[in-house]
């Protein structure tokens, strides 16, 4: 008892040290990538190399000038709101679509996974169609969803509601596949134990199969979290929503030749949104999934 009690605080400082190490590594890799970009840019410009593309301020702006652009006024001449204000507002709008889509897709994906895992016949019959649903390009699905749903949606959901559905479409698939896999991952002995307690299927599901599946499900949720952001951005294009990051991307790609930093800055914000979704799932996983340290993915 005392031995383990003594190990506790040491484990905590260990964890803190590991955390610091990880952040340092992240920063170092970031710096290395920065160096790579700037080094490539410098070398290609000095030698005047044109393969695979000509390097100049349009094709590869300085990294610092991209970040600088975030704090410039959006319109030339130093008027109007700063670019970052516009982009963060757009990101929040897209985040709403993606979050609702993610929640919808995760719930649907989990429910479908439970259903397919429980009924083998359904699994055999439906799984190929679930897979097929993901081979249809999202650019084909998106406009159809908008055409089908928009007329039916109340004003409060109009447009962004359809985009959320598109994000959900990209979210549910990994969750379904991993749920099926995870539910079947329960240890054979653990199942025998439940049988020895005369536990019914429903209680085996909630007390054993679902907890056993959680690491698998969270692995899928991490993939889905970023996919839902991509889904929301792409979904905004056919529904011609101007308020989100999709609208901004269209906007700035039109002005790329005059103002390349705008598109790059939008990319930075879109990436930041995807990363924050991922981190939120990671934090939720740390809270929900209790496993031996070596068994956590």
């Amino acid at each position, binding site marked *: 008892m005392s031995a383990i009690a003594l190990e506790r605080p040491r484990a905590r400082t260990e964890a803190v040290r590991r955390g610091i190490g990880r952040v340092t590594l992240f920063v170092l890799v970031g710096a290395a990538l920065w160096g790579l970009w700037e080094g490539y840019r410098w070398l290609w410009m000095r030698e005047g190399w044109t393969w695979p593309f000509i390097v100049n301020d349009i094709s590869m702006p300085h990294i610092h000038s991209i970040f600088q652009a975030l704090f410039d006024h959006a319109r030339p001449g130093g008027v109007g709101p700063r670019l970052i204000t516009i982009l963060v507002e757009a990101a929040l709008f897209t985040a709403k679509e993606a979050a609702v889509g993610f929640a919808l897709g995760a719930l649907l994906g989990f429910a479908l996974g439970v259903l397919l895992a429980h009924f083998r016949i359904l699994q055999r019959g439906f799984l190929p169609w679930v897979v097929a649903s993901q081979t249809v390009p999202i650019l084909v699905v998106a406009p159809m969803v908008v055409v089908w749903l928009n007329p039916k949606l109340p004003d409060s959901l109009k447009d962004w509601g359809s985009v959320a559905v598109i994000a959900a479409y990209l979210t549910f698939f990994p969750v379904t596949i991993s749920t099926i896999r995870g539910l079947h991952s329960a240890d054979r002995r653990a199942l025998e134990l439940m049988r*020895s307690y005369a536990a019914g299927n429903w209680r085996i599901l909630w007390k054993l199969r679902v907890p056993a599946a959680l690491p698998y499900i969270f692995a899928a949720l991490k993939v889905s979290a970023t996919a839902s952001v991509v889904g929301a951005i792409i979904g905004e294009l056919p529904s011609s929503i101007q308020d989100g990051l999709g609208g901004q991307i269209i906007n700035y790609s039109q002005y790329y030749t005059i103002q390349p930093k705008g598109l790059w800055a939008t990319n930075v914000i879109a990436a930041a949104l995807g990363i924050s979704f991922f981190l939120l799932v990671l934090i939720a996983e740390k809270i929900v999934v*209790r*496993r031996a340290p070596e068994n956590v993915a």
Partner: protein
Amino acid sequence: MSVVEIKDVTKQFGQTTALRGIDLAIDEGEFVSLIGPSGCGKSTLLRIIGDLIQPTSGTATVNGKPARQARIDRDYGIVFQDAVLYDWRTVAKNIALPLELARWDRRRRAAKVKEMLDLVELGGFESHHPWQLSGGMQQRVAIARALSFDPSLLLMDEPFGALDEMTRERLNMELLRIWEASGSTVVFVTHSIAEAVFLSTRVVVMSPRPGRISDVILTDLPQPRTAATREEPRFFELVTQVREALHLGHDVDHKLEASA
């Protein structure tokens, strides 16, 4: 009345006969070990008693009921070679699992968990997770879980097989203490002759192909057993007797193979 009654049980796995013509009656308060080489069907027999598998023919009754009904009534607790603890539950919650399934209320559960932690001497570890415990401690949690709902029968499938010799001997002592305290009947599957002799009131010797009972040896060592029991002449006599019975079972086996 017998707690366990096996009548003419045969178990067939495809072409293989795992068990043939098994008859065995175990009385209340007995500690019976099933011993034999791999493939003699000792674990299969234990699973039939627990209704985790069904015999091809013959009957298994527990507490005068068909094994299936006894399982539904939660008449037995089971311990496997691996502790099979749920990683996502603390020690206390692992022990409480069968109580949750039996719909005990929270207060009763907490009181019982505390009692079981004391029984297996794991007080203070209730909020640890399984991976923070040693193998021996994990197995003690598994025993506490199996006994938490006061089953009249405890089924143990090589529970200490994965532990080192020192831990195994300590847990043997502890198991005997728990057996005396709980007054339950124990069916214990093992590979170890010394373990079987030390723990049991009766040792059932089995032989393979097809799995059958080749001998039943009454271990008339005085109760309660202590560390000194392992050094008594009678202990060695019984160990020899079980060993010879095991080899005899093998000889029969070889003769059968030769004549086939």
